[in-house]
């Protein structure tokens, strides 16, 4: 077991797992009640496009990925709020746009490891990703602790938040930015197709049994961290993509939460 931690790439992968396991379940607790959990898919497909385009033109993908993810989330929010479109309609547009752009770039000669990008890989994480991830996680965590009450009322209802003096437009922008950036922080380790599971599954599992928002957030982060750790370590021994093994463990926890709820057990 010790040799897992002695490999530099595994140390980076585990650190990325700690960041993603904190950030994405944390945000899921606020995005799911707002019916915005699909934002993860929209931004991850834009990240896919940015990775492919960067590979095609020979750029480092870092900054472009963060930018594209934020644009995707912001664009989707505008469609849902401004054009009154349903979330799944806006998502379909962004999935198609991201997928089509990536496809054109790959067809034009972009060389990317599709398996690693789609399902995650322990080899993709670089030091820059970790530094950016730590910065995003620290700022997000600090902001949520500092403004917890305002964020809760904003999540419940924007009109109620406005009447409580919460700057709703600013919070919308911050939500878009943080969601997009967090998706990028998790995408290399969890994969384009599976990163949304990190956003949704821990928060949904705890919402079934938790008796308070604070408990739900704490439990979902604990689930996120432990599942990421188990998924990344198991991928080292089995060769499976870390995203896939993490998702299977999270699905097992979701099933257990469902069973506890059916038995009337609350935490």
């Amino acid at each position, binding site marked *: 077991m010790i040799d897992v931690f002695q490999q530099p790439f595994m140390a980076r992968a585990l650190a990325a797992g700690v960041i993603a396991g904190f950030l994405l379940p944390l945000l899921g607790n606020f995005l799911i*009640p707002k019916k915005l959990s699909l934002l993860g898919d929209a931004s991850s497909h834009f990240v896919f496009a940015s990775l492919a385009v960067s590979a095609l033109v020979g750029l480092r993908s870092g900054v472009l990925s963060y930018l594209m993810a934020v644009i995707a989330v912001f664009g989707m929010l505008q469609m849902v709020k401004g054009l009154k479109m349903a979330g799944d309609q806006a998502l379909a547009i962004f999935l198609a746009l991201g997928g089509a752009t990536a496809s054109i770039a790959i067809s034009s000669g972009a060389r990317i490891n599709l398996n690693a990008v789609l399902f995650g890989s322990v080899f993709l994480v670089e030091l820059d990703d970790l530094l950016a991830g730590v910065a995003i996680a620290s700022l997000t965590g600090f902001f949520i602790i500092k403004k917890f009450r305002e964020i809760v009322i904003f999540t419940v209802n924007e009109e109620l938040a406005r009447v*409580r003096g919460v700057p709703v437009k600013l919070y919308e922008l911050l939500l878009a930015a943080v969601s997009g950036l967090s998706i990028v922080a998790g995408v290399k380790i969890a994969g384009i197709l599976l990163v949304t599971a990190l956003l949704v599954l821990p928060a949904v599992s705890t919402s079934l049994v938790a*008796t*308070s*928002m604070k408990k739900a957030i704490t439990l979902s982060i604990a689930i996120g961290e432990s599942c990421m750790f188990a998924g990344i370590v198991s991928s080292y021994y089995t060769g499976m993509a870390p995203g896939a093994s993490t998702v299977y463990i999270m699905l097992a926890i979701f099933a257990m939460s469902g069973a506890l709820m059916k038995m009337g057990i609350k935490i």
Partner: protein
Amino acid sequence: MKANKPVVEFERVTVSYDRKTPVLKDVSLKVFEGEMIFIIGPNGGGKSTLLKTIVGSLRPEKGRVKLFGVDVSRFRDWWMVGYLPQNAATLFEKMPLNVSELLTAAAIHRKGMEPAEAVKLVGVEDPTSLLNKRVTDLSGGMLQKTMLALALINNPKILLLDEPTVYVDQTGVGAFMRLLTKLHVERELTIVIATHDVTAISTLASRVICINRESLYDGTLEQLITSEQLCNIYGFHVYTLRHGHAWSGE
């Protein structure tokens, strides 16, 4: 009963969602300090739009809206306004939020109440038990009391309630109206209630305002039930019983 300073002022306000069809057209009205006002009208008549415009969620295309003498776009003392939007129960469907967290999140003013004090004020006998419950686990009656406590938590000067009786049966409506009347009298609270349910109107109402895109009636309940206005608004005759409550029939 005080009835002097205007708390809400609408000056020829027109509001639309699509900039073509106005939901409110050229509406002028005033709500004075200490009044208890019922806004009635058919579904889609603009009652909720009127309340959303008062709290600044919707901007008028034409006209001016003032809250406590200040243009609503510049109004900052939001603790003075207790607002309950329509269908508030549906807001919590997927949130594991408990009552204590909800009320704490809504409390923004240092002169506001503690959550336990707010739920006691609305007639909850065991505040501790309620505060630890998830909002999604509450019965209709308890949810209604919780939502009223939410609107009252900052010790507001005015309560704006949009269809607050939808969670409860007719017995519950009566109890809720008695509770509101008590708050109105004891705390001299200005209350504006938007409802499609004419049977919910309290006989203690200062005024009744009828809205169906335009302001069709603004006066006392007594004058309203003896006029043809209810028929004009709802499209059928509304017969009234002697104790002041009303029932409707084709």
